[in-house]
């Protein structure tokens, strides 16, 4: 598996995990607490910070694991770590384009919420959800391209 594909897996897993925890904590309060009183700001900032930190840590762990695996099994090369070729660039470009379309669709929904004067709670969370959906769509598109070709 190319290093870039492993990194895409890390990104997909971290994005899903962080979003799942955030939405479980914040949206779990919706049935019992008025949305205007739910303190979502810090959990949202922590979720975004965690996403960045965990993605970096995950990439480092994958790089180390790839290098150690190459040494132990003798298959592949330590040089494979961080090696990025034109196929990776093509797949990344296509994946990010799909992610952009999904995020843009979500942003239109957020715009509608703002125009309809929904509570900032819903606007902020819908925006975060559209970013998450875009990132996941990009990751899935890349993984499909790595597996099936294009």
């Amino acid at each position, binding site marked *: 598996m190319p290093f870039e594909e492993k990194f895409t897996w890390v990104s997909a897993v971290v994005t899903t995990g962080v979003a799942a925890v955030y939405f479980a904590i914040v949206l779990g309060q919706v049935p019992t607490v008025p949305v205007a009183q739910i303190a979502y700001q810090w959990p949202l900032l922590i979720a975004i910070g965690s996403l960045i930190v965990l993605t970096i840590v995950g990439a480092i762990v994958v790089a180390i694991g790839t290098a150690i695996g190459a040494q132990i099994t003798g298959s592949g090369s330590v040089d494979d770590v961080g*090696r990025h070729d*034109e196929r990776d660039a093509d797949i990344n470009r296509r994946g990010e384009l799909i992610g952009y379309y999904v995020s843009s669709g979500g942003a239109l929904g957020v715009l509608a919420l703002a125009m309809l004067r929904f509570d900032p709670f819903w606007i902020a969370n819908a925006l975060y959800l559209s970013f998450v959906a875009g990132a996941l769509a990009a990751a899935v598109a890349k993984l499909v391209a790595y597996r*099936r*070709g294009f």
Partner: protein
Amino acid sequence: MVKPTRVSNSIRSLRFAAGEMTQAELADRVHVTRQTVIAIEQGRYSPSLEMAFRIARVFGVSLDDVFQYPGEE
């Protein structure tokens, strides 16, 4: 599995003719990942013209000897 590209190639046979060169060796010489060589060999990825020339140069053959494209029927 449906092959996403109509470009076929003779890389596998050229590797064996070149002293059973491994996919990893070819990848190193073309400066790509081994998975990209595998994807090209299996017809799952159509390389750029520049990469195609680099692959042909490794084997010392012309582009047509490495890559084939079916004519219009």
